[in-house]
């Protein structure tokens, strides 16, 4: 069973809910798919079993930099990555997507595509579960490809060690790394806080989930900060809303210390554990999941 936790808007509590779920599930491979800003390894320390460089994109490198006068070299690049400086061309590295259009259009420049070091993928054996995460070089492209690679590694581990569940903590947004996290999952959990920005953006994230035809349920986090929007959430999601976690000042304090927020005694910790158990119950009964599958 592959399950992903997402929210659209950042900072609503994806990492809190997913870390609680990982701890309660017991047997799972935990994937932190936020490859540009991974955080779970700060909560779950372990022994690094694997760390390898990963290339998610290419970079055009000019072999013969002697451009002809009067040729508009920039026009073939859809990403605006070719600049002309005096009588030389320059590839603007942070714009180059490595598509190779320039190398096809101007064979005389002898442009080759080289692998870029996009970042590293890491597997760490924590006390409770293997944690798979990525460390993208800040500013690099190809975060979606890194997420696919993390999922591939996690699947290998789950087959090899006979671990039934794969848990994926998706990044904020709805772009390529989120699509990569959601695709191929059996179930999704949306985390929402009672604010209009969070509700609107969860809606956008759920459109991605529905695009893949994946059943989902919703967890309300930080309950207590707005009655009005709490009502709206329960009205909008009805029976899809399976758990509520109260706003609790203990949570940031625990996160400041690097303690997983479900391990405390506060109201949010208790509710996080309860939410995790509800999600696990849903994951276990395929029947139940079919029941909440949206139209």
């Amino acid at each position, binding site marked *: 069973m592959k399950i992903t936790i997402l929210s659209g808007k950042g900072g609503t509590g994806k990492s809190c809910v997913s870390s609680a779920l990982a701890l309660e599930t017991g047997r799972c491979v935990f994937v932190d798919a936020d490859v540009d800003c991974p955080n779970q390894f700060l909560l779950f320390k372990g022994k690094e079993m694997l760390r390898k460089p990963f290339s998610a994109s290419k970079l055009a490198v000019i072999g013969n930099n002697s451009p002809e006068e009067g040729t508009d070299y920039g026009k073939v690049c859809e990403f605006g990555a070719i600049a002309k400086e005096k009588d030389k061309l320059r590839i603007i590295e942070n714009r180059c997507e490595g598509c190779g259009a320039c190398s096809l259009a101007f064979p005389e420049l002898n442009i080759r595509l080289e692998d870029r070091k996009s970042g590293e993928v890491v597997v760490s054996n924590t006390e409770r579960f293997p944690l798979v995460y990525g460390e993208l070089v800040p500013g690099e492209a190809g975060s979606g490809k890194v997420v696919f690679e993390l999922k591939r590694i996690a699947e290998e581990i789950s087959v090899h060690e006979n671990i039934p569940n794969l848990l994926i903590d998706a990044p904020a947004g709805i772009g390529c790394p989120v699509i990569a996290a959601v695709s191929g999952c059996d179930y999704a959990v949306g985390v929402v806080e009672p604010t209009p920005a969070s509700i*609107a953006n969860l809606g956008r994230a759920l459109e991605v989930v529905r*695009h893949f035809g994946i059943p989902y349920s919703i967890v309300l986090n930080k309950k207590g900060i707005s009655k009005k929007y709490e009502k709206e959430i329960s009205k909008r999601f009805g029976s899809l809303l399976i758990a509520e976690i109260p706003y609790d000042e203990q949570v940031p304090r625990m*996160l400041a210390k690097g303690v997983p927020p479900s391990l405390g005694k506060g109201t949010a910790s208790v509710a996080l554990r309860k939410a995790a158990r509800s999600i696990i119950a849903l994951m276990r009964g395929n029947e139940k999941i079919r029941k909440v599958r949206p139209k």
Partner: protein
Amino acid sequence: MRPNSTLRGSSGRTRTPAATRKGAIMIIGITGGKGGTGKTVIAINLALALADLGKKVTYLDCDSDCPSAHILLGATLRKKQEVRSFIPVINEEKCRKCGRCVRNCQFNSLYMPKGSAPKLVEGLCSGCKACTIACPHGAISEGSKPIGHTYRAEKHGIELFSGKLKPSEPLSEKMVEAVKERGFREGKGEIFIIDTSAGAHCPVVRALEGCTHAFAVTEPTLFGEHDLEAIKVVLKKLGIPYAVITNRSDISPRKVPGAVLEIPYSREMLDCYIKGTPIVRALPSNPTSRKISSFAKGLLK
């Protein structure tokens, strides 16, 4: 990067991500790495505080995955414009099934079923046109797909440009470029505020390119501080001078070193966030509003 050093694409679409609009004195990027630290709420309030000081402010919401500046501002998005991206259209009569386009697609968006012309997986296409150049038979012509919309709005005396990526489309960075392109073309601000999405990957880099200043908004948690380091690397790479703002500075005993502005947690700020009226406008004499206003004054010095 100098604006003129970027050449233009053949599609006639201007490429002005790094453009510094004439007359604009400042282009301020607001970013932070971690999501939910308060980038947008601080950016909106800063924009209003600057407008209150008599400046014309144009706000570009460059989080096209999950735009929320209009919600916090209580503005309605209008003047919708579609943004499209290139996709190849394969003319099956001209196609000789040589497979060059498939081999030269770095994004694996083309495949060739046995005995048939190449097929496109739209969701993977980056719009680079390498296939068009690779095809020796002229069998690929220019098509396009919608990837989202840009909008504009006005409220409380500031102009807002925003974009919405079509869900399930991966081209966030193209939407960011479209918002910036439209904002710089239509916007009349002396000061541009660019609000980025969470993270430190391509859409954030696209948003920050061309900024003259940047603020990284963080919070005093392990996560916030870790992600701040990632965004600092991006800002250094881009050569943008930046400073750190700590939001909810008192939610934990930690202290983010070197912050130029610290905003403590306040129930009023949260209420204003939920109501969709920025605190600088709703409660101008609140300590948080005063702090932001005097910070804005300092920026103009």
